[in-house]
């Protein structure tokens, strides 16, 4: 029996495109329409050889299959006994699951953190000091006549961003490409830069200087230097003019800004620039959130604890201090004694000093696929893939909440993140009594 499910919300990148059409036959996905190449790849490959379908516990260096209940019980015991447990990941799952993880962290007296701390954490830290002038993506589609991508290459990272929301989109007030200008600022001429009306090549790690000069130009202050960050001052002034004279401008920025020299202060400068521009025209800014629900994870952690990520519950209430309560730093200082990793692969991405510590402590990984982290784990629990095998709420990069659907059943015996976390929570509460 074949059926088509319409208006499916894609669970890959921060675009959260919600117009996918998925054809399902005999419990398997056989076709997907409207998906970009990256999304299509997920639909085609999510159940490949790397897929884990049975819980595993490491004994004498070898993984042995165990029942779901046994794995949960052992995992719960490890976490309940830990004095400084860490829960990390959580950007590739629903807000309902993340909410359970927050509750678990509180019961455990541990730290909960998500991939924000290695991604747009600096953006949130910038917001704490400056605020943020932003909007939803439809505002850009409908009104924007100037679009700037800074340190972001959406053609690769967010393939349908331009067509759905920016230069190639059709909005109420901007119906054609020629009604909009595209500017790209990057360290090299990326695929997105090739589409731009203006490309500015900034010297690596000098974005802060460029933003500082741009702020000067926007304020009408004279820049003495002939060149800043490898960009001729005349070009900087040209860009400033473009920004001041537009009707509605938007600055999208990516990891090139959050992770290069300056980090949260690069964002501080960008946020301040956009704020200053509002004295001349309508201008907004938006971080290009990567994962499909990294935004949602920040939202639910914030409404439940007051803080958007890196929350420490060890003393029975939420405490927050990025650099102190964030995952990489905790691991590098060798402080945590057990970890629960949900839908992330820190062993592959983290600095060596952090991974070294991860290998010394018991690690429980909840993931659909084998990866570097599952390899070093003590317990591995398979999970259903959100947006395909389980549903839930996710938040697009601009904070618009959407409900993703369950399209097919997960492999037999495999549960969703929310169910797994609920089980661990029940077990941990018993141990703690």
């Amino acid at each position, binding site marked *: 029996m074949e059926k088509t499910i319409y*208006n499916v*919300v894609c669970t890959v990148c921060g675009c959260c495109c*919600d*117009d996918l059409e998925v054809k399902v036959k005999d419990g398997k996905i056989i076709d997907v329409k409207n998906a970009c190449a990256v999304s299509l790849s997920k639909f085609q490959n999510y159940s490949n050889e790397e897929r884990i379908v049975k819980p595993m516990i490491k004994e004498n260096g070898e993984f042995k299959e165990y029942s779901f209940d046994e794995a949960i019980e052992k995992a719960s015991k490890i976490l309940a006994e830990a004095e400084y447990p860490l829960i990390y990941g959580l950007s590739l799952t629903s*807000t309902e699951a993340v909410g359970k993880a927050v*509750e678990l962290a*509180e019961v455990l007296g541990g730290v909960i953190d998500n991939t924000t701390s290695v991604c747009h954490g600096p953006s*949130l830290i910038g*917001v*704490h*000091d*400056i*605020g*943020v*002038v*932003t*909007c*939803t*993506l*439809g*505002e850009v*589609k*409908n*009104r924007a006549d100037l679009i700037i991508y800074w340190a972001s290459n959406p053609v690769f990272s967010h393939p349908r961003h331009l067509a*759905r*929301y920016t230069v190639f989109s*059709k909005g*109420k*007030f901007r119906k054609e490409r020629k009604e909009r200008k595209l500017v790209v600022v990057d360290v090299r001429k990326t695929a997105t830069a090739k589409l731009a009306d203006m490309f500015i090549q900034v010297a690596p790690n000098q974005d802060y200087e460029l933003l500082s000069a741009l702020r000067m130009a926007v304020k009408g202050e004279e820049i003495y230097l002939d060149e800043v960050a490898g960009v001729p001052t005349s070009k900087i002034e040209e860009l400033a003019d473009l920004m001041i004279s537009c*009707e*509605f401008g938007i600055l999208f920025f990516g990891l090139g800004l959050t992770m290069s020299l300056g980090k949260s202060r690069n964002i501080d400068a960008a946020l301040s620039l956009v*704020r200053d521009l*509002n004295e001349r*025209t*309508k201008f*907004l800014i938006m971080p290009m959130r990567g994962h499909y629900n990294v935004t949602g994870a*920040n*939202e*639910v952690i*914030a*409404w*439940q*604890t*007051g*803080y*958007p990520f890196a929350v420490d*519950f060890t*003393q*029975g*209430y*939420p*405490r*927050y201090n990025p650099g102190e309560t964030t995952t990489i730093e905790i691991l590098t200082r060798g402080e945590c004694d057990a970890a629960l990793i949900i839908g992330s692969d820190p062993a592959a991405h983290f600095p060596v000093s952090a991974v070294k510590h991860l290998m010394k402590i018991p690690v429980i990984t909840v993931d659909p696929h084998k990866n570097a982290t599952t390899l070093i784990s003590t317990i591995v629990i398979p999970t259903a893939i959100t947006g395909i095998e389980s549903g839930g*709420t996710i*938040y697009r990069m601009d*904070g*618009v*909440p*959407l*409900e993703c659907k369950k399209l097919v059943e997960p492999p037999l015996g495999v549960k969703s993140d929310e169910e797994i976390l609920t089980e661990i929570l029940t077990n941990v509460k018993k141990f703690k009594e």
Partner: protein
Amino acid sequence: MSEILIKNGFVFDPLNNINGEKMDIAIKSGKIVEKVSSKAKVIDASHMIVMPGGVDIHSHIAGSKVNSGRVLRPEDHVKDYEVKTKVTRSGVGYSVPSTFTTGYRYAKMGYTTVFEPATPPLKTRHTHEELRDTPIIDKGCFPLLGNNWFIMEYLKEGKLEECAAYVSWLLNAVKGYAIKIVNPGGTEAWGWGKGISHLDEEVPYFNVTPREIVRWLCKINNILNLPHPIHIHTNNLGKPGNYVTTIETMDAVKDLSKNGKVSIHITHVQFNGFAGTSWLNLASGAPEIANYINKNTHVEIDIGQVIFSDTTTMTADGPFQYILYLLSREKWVNADVEAETGAGIVPFRYKKSNYVNAIQWGIGLELALLIKDPWKVHMTTDHPNGGPFTHYPKVIAWLMSKKARERIINKINKNAKRRLDLPGIDREYTPYEIAIITRAATAKSLGLKNKGHLGTGADADIAIYDLDYEKLNPSEDYKLIKKAFKQAAYTIKNGEIVAKNGEIVASPKGKIYWVNSKVSDDIQKVMLENLKTKFEEYYTVKMENYIINESYLHDSFMLNVQSEV
């Protein structure tokens, strides 16, 4: 379910005309009943006041902009946190508390129902997620419609019934409770960085005026028979001289009062009650506004009282929030929402020594004291805009005791003291009147038939305050009043004791109230056909994904409302 008998309390139940009578209240299975068996648990409320649980008609507790406020202010949270207990989750407080803390703190004050007054329809799923995580209290939310593209276009085309069907559909789709209007037309102008400064100025591109928008939505409210009148944050909020706009707005829908009912609720009027022409000569417009309200029956307000404290302002009035940023140079969040509305957030501190803040403080109280009929007045601080809701007991004390007011008046900016009428006002609210403005009137205004009163059949949402009515001299004992309302002796929700002397003893889930507006199938069909294409042109989501299923709310209370079309 269990039975409770509250004995010997001084009961204040204005909706049933009970004014301090010593009587018993019986509870069974979550409702108030005539009597209970001898097995009932007895609460000895001797020397205490018994009131229906508080009903807060306007408090920003959940949703996208509230959460942005939380993220904006980690420094606000460190000062004020709650450690977890066996019954309660941990959290943080002060001006933008986390959701669990919000529910607990309201319950501790004897409040049992709170409405989030401003949710952008596109993001209302977020509001519901947060309301689900707000324990104990019953709640609901008001979708923002005053800058909605579809509505403005229906208005331009004169399609009243089709627009009514659209509003009906939208309320159902996002599970909203009432029509909220913020800076009509102004927030849309702000989409281009512009503003609107009078009722008859045209909104760019849409070419309709705020006056037309307000009248239109008022008519639609009548057609749909919605339980609550249009709830409006008027144009020109925060501008000296804006009391004129407030009166004009009230007057604009005077002729639309249906069957003598209230046709407009104006919110946080303090912020829209400014006389004068600049910050230097700012004065209170409360006398003029009170004068109008005293002469008319179609208006009701909530005051939006200022508290001298650090707080966080947050509204859907994007342009106003920008002006506040320019004045204060504080950090500033702005979040415009496609085809619908906007939002702005700016931290702010109200100081006694500041002339403008002191006048503002006076305006809120003057409004409550000069409007004769307490049924037209609701007590709010527009949390957190005027101040955190945890300061409500202070406001109650100020209203009940001239002496309490004088204590503050003697500390505020001297020029403001001279300028305000407040020092010369002797009126003091009685406990009966406080019960009206904090529970009876608000519940009535919201059309919540089983709340805000203690008659049989009402929800057993009750607050017992440790105030000996017989011995109380409110004018003098304002400190006792503040203490009592800060921490209810007992808070009962749905017949279950949830708080006792400031401690949460049970944490049931509250319900989310929403209006299921019914229009005829024919008009619904036509409206949807016409809506579909435009919907996907204006928005960046599919119509199917915009709609929130009732099951999403977890515990919901659906109010069926039949419309006229």
